[in-house]
């Protein structure tokens, strides 16, 4: 009788503790959700080659660029920007710095108010881009899965998307996150170039 009672009471404790455990688990899960950024979606293009496109140059619309500008044998950054985007203005000075360090950045002007405004921005704030793509209707941006500006894609020497960064590139996230990835891509490009050189000789 006493044994049956203790087993029954321990069962009761277990049943009483279960909701508490479930509640704590849910709290931890939701608490983590508070500190995660739902806008940081990983790109569906990671590990895939950049989509094919043909876009006019922002300075001279009679010149067309294709996806070949992203397949140069060197890793590079593809930066999506627009003059209507305040964060793009905030990040622009740092992009100028990166360009001065010799990091190739391709600019994709995304659905800007006008081409004149965009060109004026580049003339006054400086032009960090090796190539300036002008995506007036945002159709190429859709192929890249862009959903806002600024966004920055890391692209390897073979023209594959390696990483998509949402939000501004600044000194902090560059040195902590993006620069190590970019250096790795540079080493991969060097190794690939070395292999090709070895085959030729």
């Amino acid at each position, binding site marked *: 009788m006493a044994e049956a009672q203790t087993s029954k009471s321990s069962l009761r404790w277990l*049943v009483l503790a279960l909701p508490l455990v479930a509640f704590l688990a849910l709290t931890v899960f939701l608490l983590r959700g508070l500190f995660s950024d739902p806008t940081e979606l990983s790109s569906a293009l990671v590990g895939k080659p950049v989509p094919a496109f043909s876009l006019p140059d922002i300075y001279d619309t009679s010149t067309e660029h294709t996806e070949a500008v992203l397949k140069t044998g060197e890793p590079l950054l593809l930066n999506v920007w627009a003059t209507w985007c305040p964060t793009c203005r905030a990040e622009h000075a740092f992009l100028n710095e990166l360009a001065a360090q010799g990091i190739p950045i391709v600019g994709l002007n995304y*659905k800007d108010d006008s081409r004149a405004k965009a060109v004026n921005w580049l003339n006054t704030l400086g032009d960090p881009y090796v190539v300036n793509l002008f995506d007036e209707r*945002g*159709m190429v941006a*859709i192929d*890249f899965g862009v*959903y806002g500006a600024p966004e920055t894609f890391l692209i390897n020497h073979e023209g594959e998307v390696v990483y998509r960064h949402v939000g501004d590139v600044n000194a902090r996230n560059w040195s902590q996150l993006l620069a190590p990835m970019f250096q790795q891509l540079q080493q991969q490009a060097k190794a690939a170039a070395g292999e090709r050189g070895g085959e030729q000789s």
Partner: protein
Amino acid sequence: MTTSALTSQPHSTWRQLFSSLFVSFSLVLVLALSSQAQAQVSLEQYKFDDPAQESLFRELINELRCPKCQNQTIADSDAPLAKDLRDRTYLMVKDGATKQQVVDYMVARYGDFAYYRPPVRTSTLVLWLGPLAVVLIGAAVVLWRVRSGSEEAQLSEAELAQLARLQTEKQDKSE
């Protein structure tokens, strides 16, 4: 406290809990439905010759998710990107694309996120089985409560007499 009070009390609390839950759930449902009706954007510009294409278009824009405004479909959202995606969906449907082709197109660019019906994978199993698990756990708890409650209520005459005797004995001891 009598034995009947012991057993009937949990029952009435459960009933109260269930009825208040039911009321609040109905309220939330009514609110959600009415707000959804308000959120629709104008779709007059999308003209179709084929009514089947029009219904496919409406079905798609209500199942594709806007990547920018994350809790809305591209039919609900006023964001410029949602409009671009509606335009793209319109063009594809007009060109005779099937539903799966349009969905694949969006998922290839924006990931599984872009579609309000996630595929069944190990990473999404919790989405599909989670609600079922919650219902099962709830049913198990209710069953358990009902059964343990009825057991308590089914004391025989002899047991009731024994209980009363034990209680008086205990009172005598403590005095």
